[in-house]
């Protein structure tokens, strides 16, 4: 582990890696709003609403504390019995630190980046998306998110600041919270959503930045680039080349000269080939090879779409 050697940072990066890339939120919402408006029934039977256990005041923290205290007492006693008694008191110390929890807190405390408001969706493969977005319900716009101060992640990602109090509070009245604080965008949702607008600067979700404190901007940008390309590859693998193209378009918009720009171009050729647009794929391949004949991808590019084309 070269960079992130703290458990909290490790958890932060893990969390960021699970977060949805780019403009997924808007796309998913657009489709969902349409399906809901059409009255499409869900495919799964709804589970019964869960029942919250009753927590007597004070119980929320006491088991951990009690166990810690017992642990400490036991260790101290053990230490007293040991001929190495001077080493024993050190043992209970790590209990109190709960570093992994602090990780999320650290993420949330990352400073807000007020990104410039910009039309987020038109920048992507807008033609297809825009009409659908217009039909969706009143989903918050990119601008709303962009000006959002990073709220402490209300319901969905409230850090367990004191062994769960924040989370419980956050979940207590989610709808009211959401209404009162429309910018309480969870984690890198807002970040990535808004981050879309600011990405050309290499700015990325606060959560990702927080997770990479001290590593500069390059690593988070790369992480985001990787995420987009992974999503594109996954779409290709599952025979959804159009979706792959939309991920790649997004990458091209946000990171036109990104570290993985060449990779994107190769993936684009593959996607075009998979959609059956072989002429376009061949044209892009030729363009690629002309521009970057010595690219490490050149060999692969030459082999793409070969079986379906009369390639040179």
């Amino acid at each position, binding site marked *: 582990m070269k960079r992130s050697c703290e458990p909290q940072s490790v958890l932060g990066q*893990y969390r960021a890696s699970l977060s949805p890339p780019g403009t997924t939120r808007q796309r998913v919402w657009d489709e969902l709003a349409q399906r809901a408006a059409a009255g499409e029934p869900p495919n*799964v039977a709804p589970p019964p609403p869960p029942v919250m256990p009753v927590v007597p005041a004070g119980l929320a923290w006491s088991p951990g504390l009690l166990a810690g205290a017992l642990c400490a007492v036991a260790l101290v006693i053990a230490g007293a019995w040991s001929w190495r008694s001077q080493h024993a008191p050190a043992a209970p110390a790590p209990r109190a630190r709960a570093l992994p929890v602090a990780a999320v807190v650290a993420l949330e405390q990352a400073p807000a980046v007020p990104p410039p408001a910009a039309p987020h969706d038109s920048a992507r493969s807008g033609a297809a998306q825009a009409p659908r977005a217009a039909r969706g319900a009143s989903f918050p716009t990119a601008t709303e998110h962009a000006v959002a101060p990073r709220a402490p992640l209300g319901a969905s*990602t409230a850090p367990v600041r004191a062994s769960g109090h924040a989370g419980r509070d956050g979940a207590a009245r*989610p709808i009211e919270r959401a209404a009162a604080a429309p910018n309480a965008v969870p984690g890198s949702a807002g970040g990535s959503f808004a981050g879309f607008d600011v990405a050309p600067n290499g700015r990325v979700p606060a959560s990702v930045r927080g997770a990479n404190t001290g590593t500069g901007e390059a690593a988070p940008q790369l992480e985001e680039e990787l995420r987009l390309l992974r999503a594109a590859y996954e779409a290709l693998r599952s025979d959804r080349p159009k979706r792959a193209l939309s991920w790649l378009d997004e990458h091209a918009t946000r990171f036109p000269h990104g570290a993985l720009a060449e990779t994107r171009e190769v993936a684009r050729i593959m996607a075009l080939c998979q959609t059956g647009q072989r002429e376009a794929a061949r044209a892009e391949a030729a363009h690629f090879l002309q521009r970057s004949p010595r690219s490490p991808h050149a060999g692969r590019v030459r082999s793409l779409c070969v079986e379906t084309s009369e390639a040179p």
Partner: protein
Amino acid sequence: MGGLVMDLRPGGHPQGVRPASARPLSSVPPDSAASRELAELFRSHFEFVWRVLRRLGLSDHEAEDGVQEVFLVVADKLSEYEERGALRAWLFTIARQVASHARRADQRRLHRHQRLDAPPPLPDPQQLAEQNEAVAIVEAFLSELDEGQALVFFLSEVEAMSAPEIAAALGLTLTTVYGRQRLSRKRFEAFVRQRIAGGPR
């Protein structure tokens, strides 16, 4: 919650799955109160649901469908839902159901079709490895836990859910949740330190 009154949409259901409820299903007309409520819930919890689905094994594109599925259930059941602080727990239980359904559907698909050849891996493995190191550590750690423990760890340390929420989501007692939280935190810390000191095992 506004009442969500709807007609059952005619037509078959993918994978022959029955619609979730026998009563007429809700449609959520744009610009209705129901739609705004759904939008608010979506805005607040989209990322959470996404991460849960990803954690439960769905890929990015499966998660796109999965998130929609989760919120379709929410839209359908919102009028009956009584908020008692367990909303995220509820979303989690729905997501779990959706993930399990998606995995079954995926297996059926696999039986029907040959998978396409996997596209080539991302280039520059060194870069990728560096970026993925943290992820690899957490996943290695989670793989050492049994599923129940891993979920408690995930919900607690990654999603910052409270112990009562986790207990509700997983149907566990509070004591069990506290016990697992304590143990897994300690183990995780040791695990990370060991990995940093000794490199990947």
